[in-house]
């Protein structure tokens, strides 16, 4: 299980490396998933979030505030910059209220923050999945020295105190392109969790008759891997990717929370929560809104991943 509270182990532990189930048809899986109201709700939220992120410029234009514009009028300078009005200054002009002190619009920062969160987590998911699947299949299929090398590398990476290490590397590196840096650092520590499962499944697939048959009949290596092994891993890969994404969202937020994430003024949910820590007693809206978005996003991914796994395992088709 991927865990957004980055203090816990970073990566997947729950997806079992059991025998790979033959993947059911794509249409049937989607239909089975969409029969679940929870999945529909979760998917609906993620679609909404993607829309918010993509349409951020349009939406903020409608609302009337950019993510970085200061609004002195919306905060009370005599009270240390408390937002004026109930619920952290929620109003027609500021749908989610404003930041204390600066008066920046929270709605605008949430939707632009969604861009950052989604970009980093989805890109990291793509990278770790590709690397994890390639190295996992290679290790599982060829065994021997190749397997030993890759497995030991995974063991070492997983023995690393990932969070502390990521913080250390990120704080040591110059600013540069933070988004890219975050993707790289998250990927380095993320792929073994995917590769480990894929390796196990490939090993068991290798014993199956149809792969065995292809190998004995002298099929090309590429054919063995791409025609026989990979298609049977498709379900597992989808589940692994879905389960990995929320972990990266959570870790990115945690790194931003600790101040080594994206660079200001780029908005980020984790950084918004970090800034709200001192204000939670007098302005709870300030931490509740980014927190709620983070929570719902992570939960939606997990709900979909959970159910996808069940469907693919044939437990609840």
């Amino acid at each position: 299980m991927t865990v957004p509270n980055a203090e816990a182990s970073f990566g997947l532990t729950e997806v079992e490396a059991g025998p790979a189930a033959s993947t059911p048809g794509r249409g049937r899986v989607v239909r089975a998933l969409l029969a679940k109201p929870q999945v529909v709700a979760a998917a609906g939220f993620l679609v909404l979030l993607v829309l918010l992120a993509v349409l951020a410029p349009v939406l903020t234009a409608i609302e009337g505030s950019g993510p970085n514009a200061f609004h002195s009028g919306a905060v009370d300078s005599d009270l240390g910059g408390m937002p004026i009005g109930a619920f952290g200054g929620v109003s027609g002009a500021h749908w989610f209220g404003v930041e204390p002190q600066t008066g920046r619009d929270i709605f605008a920062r949430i939707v632009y923050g969604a861009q950052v969160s989604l970009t980093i987590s989805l890109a990291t998911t793509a990278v770790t999945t590709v690397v994890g699947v390639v190295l996992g299949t290679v290790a599982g299929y060829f065994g021997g020295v190749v397997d030993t090398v890759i497995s030991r590398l995974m063991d070492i990476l997983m023995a690393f105190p990932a969070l502390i290490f990521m913080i250390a590397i990120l704080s040591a590196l110059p600013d540069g392109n933070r988004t890219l840096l975050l993707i790289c650092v998250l990927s380095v520590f993320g792929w073994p969790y995917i590769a480990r499962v894929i390796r196990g499944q490939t090993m068991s697939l290798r014993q199956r008759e149809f792969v065995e048959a292809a190998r004995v009949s002298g099929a090309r290596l590429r054919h063995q891997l791409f025609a026989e092994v990979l298609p049977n891993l498709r379900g597992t890969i989808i589940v692994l990717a879905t389960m990995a994404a929320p972990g990266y969202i959570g870790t990115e937020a945690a790194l931003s929370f600790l101040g080594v994430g994206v660079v200001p003024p780029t908005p980020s949910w984790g950084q918004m929560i970090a800034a709200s820590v001192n204000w939670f007693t007098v302005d709870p809206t300030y931490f509740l809104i980014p927190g709620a978005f983070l929570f719902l996003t992570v939960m939606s991914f997990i709900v979909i991943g959970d159910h996808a796994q069940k469907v693919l395992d044939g437990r609840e088709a």
Partner: protein
Amino acid sequence: MINFYQLIYRTLTTFSSKKGEGSKVVPDLATDMGQSNADATVWTFHLKKNIYFSTGAPITSKDVKFGVERAFDPKLAVGAPYARLYLDAPKDYEGPYKSGDLSSIETPDDSTIVFHLNQSVPEFASALTEPVFTPFPDDPDTVTETSVDQKPVSSGPYEVKSYTQGSSIALVRNPYWKASTDSVRKAYPDKIDFTFGVDAATVDQRLISDQGKDVDTISGNSVLPSSLAKLQTPQLKSRVVEGESGCTTYLVMNTTKPGLNNVKVRQAISYAINKQQVVDAAGGNQLATITNTMLPSNTPGYQSFDLYPSKDSKGDPAKAKELLKAAGVSNLSLILDTRETDTMISQSEAIQQALAKVGITVKINQIDAASFYQTIGTTSEQHDMTVTGWCPDWASGSTFLPPLFQGSQIFSQGNSNVAQLNDPAVNAQIEKIEKMTDLTEANKAWSALDKQINELAPTVPLYYAKAVSLVGSNVGGAYSDPQRAGGVNFATVGLLDPSK
């Protein structure tokens, strides 16, 4: 710093602890403010009687001399380098451990000390308040290069009983200190415990709650902006101590960089900045007051002016654009070095926003809090602009304008003239004022120079930081003092009911 040092150390002169006169310099170990020759290059001081170290040994002029000599050791240099700056010492003098005796300090007898300076310093008596002039027993065997860090010999009313780096200091009475010799320190409490590293929000909340031992507690820092909204009840308001910090926060522009080497561009930026937004980012009106001058308002001879006025100090983008057009500059892109703390980042973002309105792109370059000052003080590493502050060592233009704007004070490392301003007229005026022996005239001239410099706009004065601190309900005699960064003066604070 001076606030804490006053508890354990005494110097020849020090800052008064009378309410409202905290920036005034008064005699401490010395009997008076000293006698100088006509051009203020030779200064003579006499020591009081009955003054002792915590070891029980009397404090003599030789101990004062030894303390100053130590300050020449490059390894031990602490605080502002006034001893090296003013004393007539050989270039290669490196303190008593390496270079031995310094001949420019004479001690004709145990209670007389004579300083020979390399220039005329009318304010030398004020410079003597600095930590580099702290006396230590003249005995290189017991007071070694490192022993002061481990076990300081105290001359003030308290001595260090225990010290855990980064965590706590416990002070107890120095039994040899005599109240009769000290007009500055009240030293009411029998012991003072300092605790460091407590989270700021926790400090605020504990002082607001005022439970248990916290009734006897004061805080060394101002409250967080987020706590101000909680301090609105009459009971809490009565425990609030607030005042100016005596420091100025400003935006400094590197005048050697393309674009910023044009005075019109710098003036445009001066017009463009929305100071109210910067103040809000710094914690609002209670924690910051907008300023248009570099010199703090408590500086003697202070005169107020506003060369780049705008309505409610919210900036004048139209005027700024006009000046940029006149300068023929467009598409300017600047890097703003920013100390990596929440409030400094917010302030940089406010500047970024204000300059975006006049078409200047600003990129914020975060520098971690520990190495920020080294980075901006290294000319090869600093970028175009930064927001920083300056607190004068004593209230005078002489400890404010020369370090920030004198051409001869541009150093490749440890540079305080971050603007790298090297203007012949300004340089000449600084040298002229520094020679004035009439301090009233000098003070007036410093303020006029402040205006002259501001016309060149190497900096945009932003605000005077203010301190709002909360004290426990059993604490008496607490008042804010600009010489102590607006915090509570430690030397005079006490408990209303010590039995509690």
